[in-house]
């Protein structure tokens, strides 16, 4: 009797081993186990409207005080109320957790119905593995496609198919605290790198941290560095040229960018111990009025307006470097994007929901005072809707955008990007020969070329 009770779970486990050995041989790209149905048995019967359907929506908006969190939850609630047979299961994670989780899920072809990916190079491995459903047909419904800014969807398209829908489209700007500038006796915002360095030094001399940053999450430093490179290269396209074999990382433009960046570090621009501060905490240094400037994506506008420095903050374009570059060219940050699993059991229902979600997303964001950096056109006047001066200022910067570059990790493959990120992180803690940095980049690029 004891024995039988003990053996039943064993059967399950033996099945597991067999299943595993099958799976281990079968990671060649096709999902041969599509027949396995969810334990949620109601799911199977297709789309007859009285069947209860669950759609899993993996997202990265856990902080209930942010507009994005509110937008998401309100839209989901509304949709569930309108479609009583549909339940949207929210899997809310923070950014790091979500990245690792999605990669683990991708390995077993178990991508949730809706998930979040970053544009271009970062989503390419998933698209190559055919994990995402093309959304072209869905974009044509209800005129969704026309709501997106022209060209934006290109970052999410491969071979003519759109695979995900962005939650925003931002640019990198320099936020500054007017009060602290005044305290340090700085009248004008810098327009050249020389002025920028002088501003940094003046602030530093007054005991004010010049630039906030949280470099434990190394993308923050890279984002700033890339803006310098955008200038020293005299315009966008450096990384693309490297990938096309027209340039190498040992190009003078890259070396000049490293040198300029190091000048900034040497001038004491960043908080002490920057590499152990995570991105959130780094932002809080600025938002709590302890740092004078913050070079970051325009997505922070809403959060700054909700912080204790609201009303004291302005924004300006990143200066030219050694007379090179055009201030109207920006680091572009097309947002994280919603993608649908190609193996979703309820592909049609999921598409319908995402269509509704994406159509209403800009309106809700507008209501929650988060319309700066939206990737979609939205009716309404910021000023009339009571947006802050900062929001209007940033929105005007958008009107000047002439072009720009994507972040490093959105352009190069992940392995190269990781080398780059830690190489830039290293500049925060020690002076390095810039030729050496260039060499390191080039070696990593060549080693990880497809």
């Amino acid at each position, binding site marked *: 009797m004891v024995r039988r009770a003990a053996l039943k779970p064993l059967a399950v486990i033996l099945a597991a081993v067999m299943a595993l050995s099958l799976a281990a041989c079968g990671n060649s790209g096709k999902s041969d186990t599509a027949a396995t149905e969810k334990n949620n048995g109601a799911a199977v019967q297709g789309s007859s409207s009285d069947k209860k359907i669950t759609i899993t929506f993996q997202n990265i908006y856990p902080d209930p005080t942010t507009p994005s969190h509110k937008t998401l939850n309100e839209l989901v609630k509304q949709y569930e109320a309108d479609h009583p047979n549909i339940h949207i299961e929210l899997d809310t994670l923070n950014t790091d957790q979500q990245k690792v989780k999605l990669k683990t899920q991708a390995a077993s072809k178990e991508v949730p119905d809706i998930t979040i990916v970053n544009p271009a190079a970062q989503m390419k491995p998933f698209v190559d593995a055919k994990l995402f459903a093309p959304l072209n047909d869905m974009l044509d419904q209800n005129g969704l496609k026309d709501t997106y800014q022209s060209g934006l969807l290109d970052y999410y398209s491969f071979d003519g198919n759109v695979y995900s829908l962005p939650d925003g489209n931002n640019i990198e700007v320099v936020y500054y605290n007017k009060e602290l500038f005044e305290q340090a006796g700085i009248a004008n915002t810098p327009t050249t790198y020389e002025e920028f360095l002088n501003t940094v030094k003046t602030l530093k001399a007054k005991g004010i941290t010049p630039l906030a940053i949280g470099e434990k999450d190394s993308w923050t430093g890279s984002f700033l560095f890339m803006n310098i490179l955008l200038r020293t290269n005299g315009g966008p396209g450096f990384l693309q040229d490297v990938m096309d074999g027209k340039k190498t990382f040992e190009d003078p433009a890259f070396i000049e960018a490293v040198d300029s960046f190091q000048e900034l570090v040497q001038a004491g621009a960043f*908080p002490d111990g920057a590499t152990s501060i995570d991105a959130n905490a780094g932002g809080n240094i600025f938002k709590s009025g302890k740092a004078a400037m913050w070079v970051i994506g325009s997505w922070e506008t809403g959060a700054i307006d909700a912080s204790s420095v609201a009303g004291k903050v302005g924004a300006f374009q990143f200066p030219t470097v050694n007379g090179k570059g055009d201030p109207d060219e920006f680091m572009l940050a097309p947002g994280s994007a919603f993608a649908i699993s190609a193996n979703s059991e309820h592909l049609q229902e999921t598409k319908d929901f995402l269509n509704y979600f994406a159509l209403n997303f800009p309106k809700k964001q507008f209501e929650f005072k988060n319309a700066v950096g939206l990737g979609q056109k939205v009716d309404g006047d910021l000023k009339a809707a009571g947006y802050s001066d900062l929001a209007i200022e940033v929105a005007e910067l958008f009107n000047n955008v002439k072009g720009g570059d994507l972040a490093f990790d959105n352009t190069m493959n992940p392995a190269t990007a990781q080398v780059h990120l830690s190489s830039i992180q290293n500049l925060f803690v020690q002076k390095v020969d810039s030729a050496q940095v260039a060499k390191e980049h080039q070696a990593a690029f060549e080693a990880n070329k497809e």
Partner: protein
Amino acid sequence: MKVLKVPAGTIAVFVLPCLLLYVCLVFVPILVSFYSGLLKWDGIANAEFIGLANFRDMFANDPVFWPSVRRTLLYALASMLEIPLCLWMAILLHRYLKNGSRLASIYFTPVILSVVIIGQLWKTIYNPTSMGGMLNGVLVSLGLDSWTHNWLTEPSIAMYSIYLVSLWQYFGYHLLIQYTGVTNIPEEIYEAAKIDGAEGFKADRFITMPLIVPIFKISIVLAFIGSLQAFDMVMVMTGGGPAHATDVISTHMYNSSFLSLKYGYGSAIATFLVAVCLLFTVVINFFFNKLENRYS
């Protein structure tokens, strides 16, 4: 003492449920992981069998790998060196207090706290002077301004700062193990020794030490394996940065697998990690068996 002769079926009932679960969920996955170490695979698609190329890259071409191995072994060494201190404290506790176990339990508390809490706490201790870090604050108030550092971000210091946190956290753990060992030594032995004129440190040298060897070994093995797998602590404190200055084997494995999307390569590192664990455990066992034999 293996005294009971029981039918094979009974043995199966006792052993198989646990063994199968364990083999399927720990052993098989790690074997699969070993196999993945032979692939060039991003973890998503496009697996390609490349034999031992990952290992060649690891040993010959990866500038992060060997330093991370060195840091890991130093980590292990530091944790093991702490144990004699724990033993000494345990002996004192036993000698001077009637109910030393209460104190031992108090020393144990950092072990039960999640690494998230420990990380937050020690970050505020290690913070730079400008952010009000305690350690620097104390140094400044002692007039030792030149001794202040950015403890977690200076590449030459950061790793030692993390070692220290681990030593602090596991002090109570090993002390408790040693303390239990010490209290389990029968009083009569000491009394007999006292008659022969052995007391205090002499008694420790000739009675406590030999009898504590098995417990000592447990502590050493646990400390060794624990520090080889140290992961959460490093992730929370520095994430392996700045620029890999605090990367250990396990964080390097994790970053390679999930950030650089070189899952095959990360698996090769995992293989190496398990192999090192095994090798050293065998060595430690061998060493202690010799030691035990000498004493008995």
